[in-house]
């Protein structure tokens, strides 16, 4: 009951009747994501997606446009960073990292037509956006990270990277 009251106070509910009832009388009706939907060229990682799928798509983008942007929100931050690290393993890439908050609004409505107000909750979720370039960028911001020096200095930096063809496993019948 104390936990429910804390939630109601955080949501700035002023109605006394709503303050005395618990969250069990409410249900989540709508979730509004207050951020721009990413372009088709951006690799948007999901928490439960497969890493090799993200890596394959980002290698295709690198081949065509010589730069790729990888983004991840919430639990997908881990996947986004892992795809960037896998790409950096084979090639020397220039990296630019930006971290930011994404606000998500949830609207909770009362169940069973009770005389209660709607509740709006604002949540801030951490997110990361990683930009990888083959060529050195002209403007280097705060999140710039140069390619790491490898142990063998004779490693050539290829102008046109050649990637292995991705062959997915055949589906079981």
């Amino acid at each position, binding site marked *: 009951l104390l936990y429910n009251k804390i939630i109601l106070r955080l949501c700035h509910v002023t109605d006394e009747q709503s303050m005395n009832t618990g969250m069990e009388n409410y249900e989540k009706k709508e979730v509004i994501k207050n951020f721009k939907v990413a372009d088709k060229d951006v690799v948007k990682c999901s928490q439960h997606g497969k890493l090799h799928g993200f890596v394959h798509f980002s290698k295709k983008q690198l081949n065509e446009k010589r730069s790729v942007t990888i983004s991840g929100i919430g639990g997908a931050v*881990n996947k986004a960073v892992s795809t960037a690290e896998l790409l950096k393993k084979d090639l020397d890439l220039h990296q630019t990292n930006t971290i930011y908050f994404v606000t998500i609004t949830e609207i909770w409505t009362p169940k069973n037509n009770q005389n209660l107000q709607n509740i709006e909750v604002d949540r801030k979720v951490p997110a990361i956006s990683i930009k990888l370039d083959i060529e050195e960028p002209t403007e280097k911001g705060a999140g710039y990270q140069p390619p790491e020096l490898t142990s063998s200095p004779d490693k050539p930096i290829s102008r046109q990277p050649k990637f292995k063809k991705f062959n997915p496993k055949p589906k079981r019948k």
Partner: protein
Amino acid sequence: MASISAKSPELRMKKNAPAHSRGINELYVDNTQPFNQQLERAWRILDEGKLDHVLVHGIGPAMQRVINLALQIKLRGNGMFDVSATTHTVHLHDDLNDTDTGLVTSQTRRNSSISIKIFRTLNVVS
């Protein structure tokens, strides 16, 4: 790891902590510790210690928490602080103890890590 125990149940894995540098202004964030305490610790290093910057590190699932911590401090500072993030790959070495034969072998895993530098800016918002 589930794959190792499924193939050979007599192998016991011991995870070793990764080698890391220890500095006064370095903070390692974990998912097991309370978030508010970690946030206060980072804020105290910047505010009371009068140091130039704080380095916050996190491995694997703790990366989300590290980003949250850095951005919360930036909001609290009202323009006094700025953030700069870098990502790395960390090699983790595990010891595998064979309980039947007594042999000790090792394996190397890779994990992603993030380090965020929270530093003072020259501009002060009035």
